[in-house]
C-alpha cells in the first residue's frame, strides 16, 4: 500500500520551526545588551523621559479606591515634573527632589486595570514592564494583588512601591527586596485599636468576625483577634466571606443569635459598604441588646471613601486609618489643598499613600543618583523622613515597612458635609505600633537580580 509523502515531512517541519524560532530569538538577545551601560538592569531609561506604571483596580469591589489612587498618581507626576503648586515636593524632609522630573528626565506614566485579580494584575504589570518599559510599578488596592505583583517585580528586577495594601504578609512572610510599603498593616491596626475598644466597650465582650477570604482578611482577622483576646475578649466565631460577595445577609443572619455582642467586619471597599449597610439597616444591629450590653460594630480598616458609600451606617463606628485629610499638620493641609483644587474633593487615604510612594521613589532615585534598583533600594532602606502628613516616619530596612503614627477614627454623628464623615478619636504614637520584624518570617531576597535585562 503506497503512502504518499507530503512535501513537508513532520520531522522536517518541526526542525525548521525550531530553527526558525531560535533564529528569531537571537536578535532579541543582542538588542537587549546593545544599549547596556555600566550597570545592566531592567528598563534602563535612555531617552529624556522615565516611565512609571500605575496598576490600579478600575473594576471590581475596590474600583472607587483605584480611581482615587489614579488621581493621586497623576497629581504626583505633575508635581514631580514641576507643574502645579508642587504639593509635598516642597514639604518632604530630608529631600533631594528638584521639581524637574527624576534625575532631569521628565516623568511619564502608563496605567492598567488589575480587576482586583492576581492574574489580571500580573498580566497588566508584565505589559508595563515589557512593552512600556516602566522602572517602577505602584498601586494595587488589594493585598492579594500586591503580593502577586510584588513577587513578579522581584523576578523582573523592577521596583514595586505598594499602594493600598494592609495585609501583614506584604511586608511579612511575602516581603521582597524590590517591594516597599508606606501603608500601615493589620497588626498595627490591632495594636492601635485594642486599647480604644477596651476603653469604649469594656473588657468583657464576645466578638463575631466576618472576614474577606484572602490574605488581607486572614491577617487582619488574626491580628484583631489576638489584640482583642489579649484584652480579655472572647471570639464567638470567625466566618470567611468571598471577595466581592455583594449580598452578606446569609452571613449576617446568624450573628445576633451566636451569643456575640460585637461584630467585627474585616471587609474593605465595596464589600465593607455592603456588609455594614446591611448590618445596620437591614438587621438593625446597632439598636440591639445582647448579653445585657449594647451591640457594637467595629470596622478595623476604615476610609473616607467607604464612609461616603455607607452613608448613615458609619455613624459611631470605630476603626483605624493610615491618614486623614483633616489631620492638623502642614503637609496634610498642602496635599488636601492641592488635591482639592485639582479634583474638587479631598484625597482619600489610598490616594495619599500612592502619592507619597511616588514621591518617595523619586526622592530615593535622586538620592542614589541613579535608576539602578539596588542603589535605589539602599536609599529607601532605613530612610527616616517627615513632611508627608504622617509625622516622623521610618522605612524599616528589615522588612521595607513604614512606621508612623496610626489613627483611630470614628464615624461622625453629625457630619457637616459629605467629606466630613469621620473624626479622629485618637492618634496612636509610632512606638506603640512598632513590632519586631522577625515575627512574620519571610525573606527579602537578593537585590542584584538581572530580571528582564537578562
Amino acid at each position, binding site marked *: 500500500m503506497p*503512502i504518499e509523502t507530503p512535501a*513537508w515531512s513532520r520531522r522536517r517541519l518541526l526542525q525548521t520551526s525550531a530553527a526558525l*524560532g531560535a533564529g528569531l530569538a537571537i536578535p532579541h538577545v543582542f538588542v537587549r545588551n546593545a544599549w547596556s551601560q555600566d550597570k545592566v538592569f531592567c528598563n534602563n531609561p535612555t531617552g529624556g523621559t522615565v516611565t512609571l506604571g500605575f496598576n490600579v483596580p478600575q473594576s471590581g469591589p475596590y474600583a472607587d479606591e483605584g480611581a482615587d489612587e489614579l488621581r493621586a498618581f497623576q497629581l504626583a507626576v505633575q508635581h514631580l515634573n514641576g507643574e502645579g503648586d508642587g504639593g509635598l515636593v516642597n514639604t518632604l524632609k530630608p529631600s533631594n527632589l528638584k521639581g524637574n522630573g527624576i534625575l532631569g528626565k521628565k516623568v511619564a506614566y*502608563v*496605567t492598567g486595570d488589575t480587576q482586583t485579580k492576581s492574574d*489580571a494584575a500580573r498580566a497588566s504589570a508584565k*505589559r508595563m514592564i515589557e512593552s512600556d518599559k516602566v522602572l517602577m510599578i505602584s498601586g494595587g488596592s488589594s493585598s492579594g494583588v500586591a503580593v502577586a505583583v510584588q513577587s513578579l517585580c522581584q523576578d523582573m528586577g523592577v521596583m514595586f512601591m505598594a499602594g493600598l495594601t494592609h495585609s501583614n504578609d506584604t511586608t511579612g512572610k511575602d516581603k521582597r527586596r524590590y517591594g516597599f510599603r508606606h501603608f500601615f498593616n493589620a497588626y498595627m491596626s490591632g495594636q492601635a485599636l485594642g486599647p480604644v475598644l477596651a476603653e469604649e466597650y469594656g473588657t468583657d465582650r464576645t466578638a463575631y468576625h466576618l472576614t474577606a477570604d484572602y490574605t488581607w482578611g486572614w491577617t487582619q482577622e488574626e491580628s484583631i483577634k489576638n489584640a482583642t483576646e489579649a484584652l480579655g475578649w472572647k471570639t464567638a466565631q470567625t466566618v470567611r466571606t468571598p471577595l466581592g460577595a455583594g449580598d452578606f445577609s446569609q452571613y449576617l443572619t446568624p450573628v445576633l443569635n451566636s451569643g456575640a455582642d460585637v461584630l467585627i467586619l474585616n471587609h474593605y471597599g465595596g464589600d465593607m459598604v455592603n456588609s455594614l449597610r446591611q448590618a445596620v439597616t437591614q438587621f438593625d444591629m446597632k439598636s440591639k441588646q445582647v448579653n445585657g450590653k449594647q451591640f457594637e460594630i467595629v470596622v478595623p480598616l476604615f476610609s473616607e471613601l467607604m464612609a461616603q458609600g455607607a452613608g448613615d451606617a458609619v455613624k459611631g463606628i470605630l476603626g483605624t486609618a493610615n491618614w486623614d485629610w483633616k489631620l492638623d499638620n502642614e503637609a496634610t493641609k498642602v496635599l488636601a489643598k492641592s488635591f482639592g483644587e485639582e479634583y474638587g474633593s479631598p484625597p482619600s487615604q489610598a490616594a495619599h499613600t500612592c502619592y507619597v510612594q511616588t514621591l518617595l521613589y523619586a526622592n530615593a532615585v535622586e538620592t542614589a543618583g541613579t535608576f539602578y534598583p539596588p542603589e535605589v533600594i539602599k536609599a529607601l532602606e532605613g530612610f527616616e523622613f517627615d513632611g508627608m502628613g504622617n509625622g516622623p516616619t521610618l522605612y524599616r530596612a528589615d522588612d521595607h515597612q513604614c512606621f508612623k503614627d496610626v489613627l483611630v477614627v470614628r464615624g461622625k454623628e453629625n457630619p457637616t458635609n459629605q467629606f466630613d464623615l469621620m473624626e479622629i478619636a485618637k492618634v496612636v504614637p509610632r512606638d506603640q505600633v512598632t513590632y519586631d520584624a522577625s515575627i512574620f518570617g519571610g525573606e527579602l531576597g537578593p537585590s542584584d537580580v538581572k530580571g528582564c535585562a537578562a
Partner: protein
Amino acid sequence: MSESVLTSEKGIGRSPAERHRPKGDGMRGFMSSSRSDYVILAIFALAVLTMPVWLAPIGAGYPDILQKFAIFGIFALGFNILFGFSGYLSFGHAAFLGTGSYAAVWMFKLLSMNALIAVVFAIVVAGIFALLIGYVSLRRSGIYFSILTLAFAQMSYNLAYSVLTPITNGETGLQTSRSDPRILDTMMGADPHILRTPDFFGIALQGWPGFYFCAILLILAFFVTMRIKNSTFGLMLFAIKSNQNRMNYTGFSTRPYLLAAFVISGMYAGLAGGLLAVTDPLAGADRMQWTASGEVVLMTILGGVGTLLGPVIGAAVMKYLEQIFSSFNEGFLHRSFDFLPTGLQDFVVTIVSPFVGEGWHLTLGLLFMIVVIFLPGGIMEGIAHLTRRFRKGETGGSGQTARTGH
C-alpha cells in the same frame, strides 16, 4: 446555516463511504488530502513564530501578550474539538485550565522547575479530571450538558476557595517559595533555596524564550487538531454534531467518542493552564471562574466554530482587547489624536474613551454582537467572504452568490 457550511467541506456527505472503508484506505484518504493542510500548517507556523515582528506595530510585540495569544490559542483549539466538532457546548472548561495550572505549580514546588515535567503532569491531571466530569456530564446533551459542566466548574472554583485552600492557597494563589522541597532539582545538585524561574533544560522560560516555547506547543497543538479533524474519529464527531440520533440508529455508541473528545479538549486546557504556570509560576482560582469558561466560548465563536484557525484568531483578538484596549487612557487618546484641531480632538476623545480603558468590555460586547449577527461563522467566515469577493472581482463576477448567504 453555519452548520451546513462547516460540515460540507470535510464532509458528512463523504463520510458514510469512508466509514465503511478498511482502515488502510481511510489512511490513504487522509494522507492524500493532507498536502494543502500541510501548507496551511507551514503558513500557520511561520505566522505564529514571526508574531513578534508583525504584531509590533499594533503594540502587541512584547513577550507577555504573545505568550497569552499562544496559550489561549491552545485553550480555544482544544475547546473547539469538543464544541466545534461535536457540537457539545461545555460551559466549564476553565476548570481544566485551573487544574492544569495548579498541577504545574505543584510540580514546580515538589519535583523540579523543569517546564516539561510540569506541563506533562498538568495535561495528565487535567485529562483525569476531564474524564471524571465528562463521564457524568455526557449522560445529558444540549443545554443540560452545558449546565452540568458549568455546575462542575463553579463547584471546583468554590472548592478551590474554601475546602481546598491547603492545595490551592485560596484567593492569594499558589506560588513557589524558597522553602519548597523540589526533590529532583535537589538531587541534581541545584540549591533549592535559590528561587528560579521555570526552565526547559537550562533555558529560562521568561520573556522571548517563554513565548517560543508556547508558540511551538501551539503549532504542535494545531497540528494535532488538524490530524483529529481529518481522522475518522473527527468525522464521527462531525456526524454526532449533524445528527446524534441517526448515529445511534446506525448502531454507533456515540458516548465513547464524545467522552474521548471531552478528555482531549480537557487535556488541551490542561496544557494551556500548565503553560500559564510556566510563563508565570502562580496559580489562582480566578482561572476557574465561570467568566473564564465564558471567555473561551466567546473566543471560539468570535473566531469561527468548527474551523481550525478560527479559535486561535478569536483568542488573540480577545486577549488583545483585554490587554491593550484596557490600557488606553485619556492621555494616550489625546496623544493619538493630536493631529486633529483641539476642539475636534476633544470631541473624538470623548466619543472614543468609553470604548477603551475600563470600557474594553463594551468594545468586546459590540464586536461579539456584530460577529454573531452578521458573521455567524465568526471571523473565519468574514475572511472566506472577503477572499470569495476578491476572487470574484478578479474574474469579473457580480458578487451575487456571496450575498445570497444573508
